[in-house]
């Protein structure tokens, strides 16, 4: 795929939501800041976060230290974040899953109301992938193949398993679910021909260009800007979606003016070249901007959808 086109797509996303530059009298940090990332170093959240930290240094004029607190898909960091000072100097570049999904399956100490949400910068890329040399090149062909043959699906979250389970029941597939223990575990299973198809949290970006993998459909509500020809499950007639965004989280009780400053920082970052480049080109995630209110609404909406999905 043409890299220029990707940048252009990202830029288009940016300009759609372009906002006035930061106001001169808005809140400014007075000491070095700490950015909490709920995942281990090396993952796509961490990579984007580290470049974002430098963008924010430029915007706020203070050093930004990155602290990784991995565990439980962001749940560990969110739990720790409950005790953070609401003075704007500690913030999280967070993945929504810890709020929209973890509380449904495991007891956690926090709730959506415990934090404030200042803006979204990056969109998720959950997809259905198969090996490049598989006998099916689209989701329809996969279903047709599955009606004749027993199949295996490498899952990552109970949620994508629940969605696939319903599709399998609806289509009458004989489908077995294989755990992978996280993103890195999918590639060997798929490339080694052990499983028929799999969930991708973004790993396809590395293997689709080489032809080793094919992306058959997206779990997200909207099509991916990188694969405009690949349909979503909803478009294919299955009423299930699974979305995730990466946003600024602030401690509960943070004053409005600080939340506003972070919202403006998010506006700045989604048009800042280094951050856009690492997000779009290296980790192949779309730049998606939402303001604080839209972010919180999206979290509540996704949470409700996930609860409905996991209810039975």
């Amino acid at each position, binding site marked *: 795929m043409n890299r220029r086109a990707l940048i252009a797509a990202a830029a288009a996303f940016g300009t759609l939501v372009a906002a006035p530059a930061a106001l001169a009298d808005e809140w400014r940090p007075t000491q070095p800041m700490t950015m909490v990332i709920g995942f*281990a*170093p*090396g*993952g*796509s959240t*961490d*990579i984007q976060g*580290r*470049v974002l930290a*430098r963008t924010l240094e430029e915007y706020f004029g203070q050093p930004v230290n*990155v*602290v*990784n*607190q*991995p*565990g*439980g*898909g962001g*749940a*560990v960091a969110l*739990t*720790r974040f409950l005790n953070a000072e609401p003075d704007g100097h500690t913030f999280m570049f967070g993945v929504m899953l810890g709020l929209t999904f973890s509380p449904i*399956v*495991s*007891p*956690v*100490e926090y709730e959506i109301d415990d934090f404030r949400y200042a803006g979204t910068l990056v969109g998720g890329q959950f997809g259905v992938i198969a090996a490049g040399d598989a006998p099916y090149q689209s989701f329809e062909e996969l279903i047709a193949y599955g009606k004749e043959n*027993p199949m*295996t699906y490498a*899952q990552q*979250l*109970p949620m994508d*398993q629940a969605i696939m389970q319903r599709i399998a029941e609806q289509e009458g597939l004989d489908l*077995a*679910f*294989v*755990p*992978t*223990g996280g993103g*890195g*575990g999918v*590639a*060997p*299973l798929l*490339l*080694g*021909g*052990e*499983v028929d198809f799999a969930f991708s949290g973004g790993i396809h*970006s*590395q*293997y689709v*260009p*080489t032809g*080793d993998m094919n992306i058959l459909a997206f779990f997200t509500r909207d099509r991916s800007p990188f694969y405009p020809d690949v349909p979503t499950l909803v478009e294919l007639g299955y009423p299930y979606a699974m979305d995730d965004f990466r946003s600024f989280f602030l401690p509960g009780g943070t004053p409005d003016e600080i939340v506003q400053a972070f919202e403006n920082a998010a506006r700045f970052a989604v048009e800042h070249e280094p951050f856009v*480049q*690492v997000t779009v*080109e*290296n*980790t192949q995630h779309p730049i998606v901007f939402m303001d604080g209110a839209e972010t919180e609404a999206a979290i509540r909406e996704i949470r409700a959808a996930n609860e409905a999905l996991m209810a039975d």
Partner: protein
Amino acid sequence: MDLSAVGAAAAEALTLASFIGIGGGVLLGYVVGVIPGLSRSVAISIAIPMTFYMSPYIAISFLIGLSKGTAAGSAVSAILLNAPGEASSAATALDGYPMAKAGKPKTALQIGLIASVIGDILATIILIFVAIPFARVALMFGPYEMAAILAFALVFIAGLSGGNIFKGLAAGGLGIFLGTIGLDNQTGLPRLTFGYTELMDGMPLIAVAIGTLALSEMFVQSEKLRYDRANMSVQLKNDPNDHVTMPILRRIMPTILRGTGVGTFVGALPGLGPSVGSFMSYGMAQRAAKDPSTFGKGEPKGIAASESADNAVIPAALIPLFGLGIPGNVSAALLIGAFAIHGITVGPLLLRDNPELLYSIFAGMILASIIMLALGWFGLMVFAQITKVPPHVVIPIVIFFCLAGMMLQGYGTFGLVILIAFAVLGYLMKKYDYSFVTFLVAFIITPMLELNLRQSIILSRGNWEILLNRPIALFFIACTALALVMLILRTVRTGKPAANAPAD
């Protein structure tokens, strides 16, 4: 191989900037490796922001040099203090510490360094010639094969433990039990976390490793300081015979080569990691020896086996990374992030899009090995002086580093409590002769074994016959059964354990 690219790569590898960058990485890694408590993965994640200001080639070579340095440096504290800097050097301490106590600390350090460097260079050469064309071989090792290999590693390494076989089973069982804590892989439901969010990703490995290996040893030595002072620490005498000799080198060379082979094999399979490699290699050296009873009492082959495999894992873990984009272990996974920050996607695309960079990195890795030999040789002269520092000064410093290293993990006070708990556990295990090696290896292997076994059962849909098409898996299952039978037979026959390595 594109020759002009190789030439350009060699030219870039030999600039002053790359010497400084790679040398700095190796030195930093070596120091982190020596200090018990500071671990490789922490060092890499802290160093990644430092690489923002370097060229991609130097940045990556710096980080790989750092990995290599930690693997070599961790032997120093294992040999001199019996407190390994990394879990993967725990096998080095089994023979290194007795040898140092017997008045040959420098010889032990030199054997460790030579084994490290040879293992490192050979594995790097294998990486260069094998990485891209043969990386796909690793895909032949699917869940069935990995489950069989892990089961074999568990039984084989458990066989190394001394003492009563029932004590061994108890130690291994505890390791397996603690290894099951955390979120279930498939359902995402928490198991045995008792409501602690911190335990969702399992008992923190670093806390278990630092606690049972390094901190507990400080407890043991504190006790000796009180009751057995004369016989507690390594003495550095100015013994002119305390250096490695040609006969020793000739004797350990086959062991080093075997260790390199084991380390490369283990490293190339995603997930196994250096601890499995070094213990497997140690066990194989012991089985191959004419007189296995010398192991655990200062046998040079023991040090050579462990260190060569430990270091060979580091470059070998890059085989699946460069060939397939699949990281071989945690440090390799961190490298993916470092590459990405520099705008490079690791994997099969790297050779196609960026061959010069790849060859430069290979050249940098060889350079790192050579720098490691020079730095290590000088470094062990310096570090050997640690033995002149009185233990009542060394012990609190090591305890401080253990606690500080745990704080760096970001677990907060919860991590410190877990760390102390495991230190007490390790102390009791050493005191009552339960093998902490068996415990630790069982703990490390269990989550991987569980996942692969589960995948195998689901993929096969419970059908055993599928194994008939899996000769590699069958082979390792047979090895596991054989190791088990031999272990039981020897225990029954002699009333003693199969192997002679002491538990501490």
